[in-house]
């Protein structure tokens, strides 16, 4: 499954330079990595720039995403492209591959996901055979179709970055990134994820159908894109991990931003239409995502725009609405307005 595309460090530097031209620091490099990832994936997945952006933000911010959409909307293509874009560099562990896809079914067992020890007659010992979780990017397709048992194994792996089989713990790669999907309509015979488990996902993204022109482009360039995949620029795993570190250190978060986040949470919890507000953890998880979003836009500080972009995706699936209230977007818009106004005003005082 390993892609044989060559790393192109020179190319990277050039791309990165355009993002933060006046910041010749480590952050420039990080921005370059993001840009390369973005460009590479964007060439394979058409008309989904917003989702690609969020996926990359989650990847760098060390989170996972849950996509809600329909079959054939490009989830696999996205996950695969993302995995292949991180294929460069030497492998740390031979068992780790860039990309795996797991199709969840009701009869799946936890060991089908994590891996299983098998007896090797030649060495007279058990060998652990790695499951599909041992990859950089894992596509967990239709995660709500499998039993809670498998779901919890999966979610443990996502939370702890390790799997435990027969009391032996096997660490997953540091770059372990899950893109889970679920079909929002076809609910017969499913096991919907409860809210605490949804909390493991950084973003829940609703995907709409792509627009007409993008759809035409998909049909037109279907063949070329299939052939092209090997020739695109890629980044190495180390580069991605470095970018993660540098963005965390280099992108500043002003106290005003944190105030706004806390105020949004508090207002959300106070709102009559909300049954259960978001957790403090969600705010903590959101910080690195905000940093990545800022870096992706060429800024070295988090701004109101980043909150506008991410807050609905981060908070949407963590908040339970009161019975009879359906419009989550409206609730979020309403509660965000005042803190965002305070944030905007704070810059002039």
């Amino acid at each position, binding site marked *: 499954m390993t892609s044989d595309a060559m790393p192109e460090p020179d190319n990277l530097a050039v791309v990165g330079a355009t993002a933060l031209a006046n910041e010749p620091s480590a952050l420039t490099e990080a921005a370059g990595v993001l840009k390369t990832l973005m460009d590479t994936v964007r060439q394979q997945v058409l008309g989904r720039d917003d989702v690609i952006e969020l996926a990359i933000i989650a990847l760098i911010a060390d989170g996972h995403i849950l996509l809600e959409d329909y079959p054939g909307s490009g989830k696999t293509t996205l996950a695969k492209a993302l995995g292949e874009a991180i294929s460069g560099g030497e492998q740390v562990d031979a068992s780790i591959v860039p990309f795996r896809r797991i199709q969840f079914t009701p009869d799946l067992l936890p060991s089908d996901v994590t891996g299983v020890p098998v007896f090797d007659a030649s060495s007279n010992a058990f060998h652990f055979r790695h499951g599909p979780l041992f990859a950089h990017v894992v596509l967990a397709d239709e995660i709500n179709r499998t039993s809670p048992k498998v779901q919890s194994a999966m979610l443990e792996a996502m939370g702890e970055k390790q799997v435990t089989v027969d009391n032996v713990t096997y660490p997953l790669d540091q770059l372990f990134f899950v893109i889970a999907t679920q079909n929002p309509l076809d609910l017969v015979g499913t096991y919907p994820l409860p809210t605490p488990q949804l909390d493991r996902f950084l973003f829940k993204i609703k995907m709409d159908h792509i627009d007409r022109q993008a759809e035409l482009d998909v049909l037109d360039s279907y063949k070329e894109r299939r052939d092209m995949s090997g020739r695109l620029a890629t980044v190495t795993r180390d580069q991605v991990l470095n970018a993660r570190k540098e963005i965390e250190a280099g992108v500043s978060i*002003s106290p*005003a931003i944190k105030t706004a986040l806390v105020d949004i949470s508090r207002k959300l919890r106070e709102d009559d239409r909300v049954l259960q507000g978001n957790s403090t953890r969600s705010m903590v998880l959101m910080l690195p995502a905000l940093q990545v979003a800022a870096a992706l836009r060429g800024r070295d500080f988090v701004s109101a725009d980043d909150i*506008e972009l991410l807050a609905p995706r981060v908070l949407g699936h963590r908040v339970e609405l009161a019975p009879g209230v359906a419009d989550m977007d409206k609730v979020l818009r309403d509660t*965000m*307005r005042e803190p965002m106004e305070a944030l*905007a005003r704070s*810059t002039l005082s």
Partner: protein
Amino acid sequence: MTDRTEQLMPQLLPTSLRALIVASSFWFLSLTLTVASGSWAAVLGCVVACYGVDSWIHRSPFERLRISSILGGALVFALLAIALADLFVNTGLFTLLMSPIAVFNSGESIKWFAIGASITVALRSLAHRTSYGAVVEILFVAAAFVITLAAHRNGMIHRPFFIGDYALTRGIDPASILMVFGCGAVLSLAGLLMAENNHRRLPYHFVVLGMLCFSLLFYVRLFGLPTPQLTDDLGLTGQAQEGQNRQRENPFNDGENNTDNEAPVAVVVFRDDYEPLNGSYYFRESAYSQFNGAMLDITRHDGMDQDLIEHFTNSRSDSAQLPPSEEQLTPVRTTIGMLVPHRTPFGLESPIAYENVPNPNNLRFKRTYDAYSLAPEYDFEHLLGRELGREDWSEEVLQEYLTLPDDARYEELARQLIAGLRPEYVDDPFAKAWAIKTYLDENGIYSLKNEHAYEADPAASFLFGDLTGYCMHFAFAAVHMFRSLGIPSRVGIGYAVPAENRGGGSALLIQAVHGHAWPEIYFRDVGWVIVDPAPQQTLVDMTTDPQNNLQQLLGDMLRNDASFDDFLQSQQTSFINLDAVLNTLYALVLAILVAAYLVKGYRLWIPLRSNRDAQYRLSYRAVLDRLAAIGIHRNFGESREQFAARASGTAPSLRELTNSHLACALGTTSASQSDYDWQAARRTIAREIQSSTPGWKRLAGIINPFSWLFSK
């Protein structure tokens, strides 16, 4: 259902308040155009339309109608109703069923209900749908009050009566009250419209309000509040023209006018103690002494009537001919305030000098002067045995005082009357005169209605006819008979006021009814003596309400005593001092405007003077101020980047400026180290605004003192 009521409840109060304001404007406007029923119908229509529009504007089918359809519909409705009202009034059937008055009132009601309703529907729909509609609504209300004021600039504010009367009886200018109502209505309406929802309209409202305040301020500062000039006689429309014209008219035509006889003409304040012996205060103004061929008239002979002072002067004017002696005469000084203009001054008999005095209230008094008189204190015995005529009169002058119409009957009657005198008085001039007076007293009938006015000699017609007439007839008849007996005499003209009218005070009110004419005889060493016939039979009730309060009030006013101010204040205690309130208001408005402009200017100027650390903040704020002035400002909850993107059509450089600003405000970039050129960016954006915004909008932005309130 509860949701609905919850939504409606907060609307109910502003809707009611607005309905009240607009309805009262309708009421003011319609007062002069229709009868009471029409006015009330207009108010009703307006209230109904206000509630209707406010509750239906956001519901179908109203919601789907275009504004032009609504306006057209309102117009058609109004026209139909007017046509219907016309039909109703002009069709005989209804007049037969109801009384004509009821039909007329119903017609007016239908018409004005429709007019009120349709105009209100148009105004409210415009205010809901368009940004300028709110301004139109404010202007309509303002116009209603302005028209009420403007229509009565030169007179009383007579409608609505209860306001005018209320104010006038308390000495308050009714215009002030209406101004306060109008300003209050416009301000509350503006407040309501601002509270109404659309924040984008706020700049328009502030511009309009600012302009209204400015124009009001300038108008009041330049011209003062529009003060209605009080009519000549405190609202009792008297014979304002009397003093000016009566000398030219046939004096006998007076009987035909039947204007209000109680109208005050002048007020007299006595500075010296004086009580007349014969029961009346006589004020001489002029005299008919020369026979012009038809009747006695004002003399054109220089030698005659030299004791009269014919014209006002700005200082003191003395009589050219003083009474021959001051025996039995007492000097009396009176101050006279004329409420009606007179050509000739008058004074207590016999005036010897007039002196102009400062007018204490030129709204009330046309002219004020001191009259110095030598008033008679003699009784009749003093006059007995006197000779006639003045020593220095020429023969010609004496003859003029003896000329009478060529009618032998006068002498015949006179001789007949004096035939009965006792032997010792047979040659006494005063006794002869007294006999004639007594004849007239006993036989004459006082009446304002008579048939003599158009006779060639009304006096003859009176004397030899039914002996029915008024003072002119008596005076002329008496003088003619005096002259026929060789007694120099004339007809004195002026006012005679019954002594009891004075009522113990020092002020005396002269009313139009007191205008009088009397015969006068010149006795040597005494002067002109009034021998006034007083008919015992009268057909007219000549008693008048002495109007003691008015007499005292005007007297106090003329004396310029503090008591008049006390009186006014006692009437005003229940009311706040409008002038002080208005002045405070103007000062407040002015102060707010000045402060607003100062802040506005300061915020634009300070970036030039501040150090680098604050530049990111101050320069950015100055740019936001500029944008806010032309109506572009950040919405509530909108982020700075979103606003910059939205405003980039007007000022493309704003994005870059916003990014630099945020990097300083939210990022770690130190403001002092940032090498961004804030001043250049500010200038660039100013240029961009200039090229992309129409001039009037920029001008409005410059004028608007409160534009900076919207930059945030």
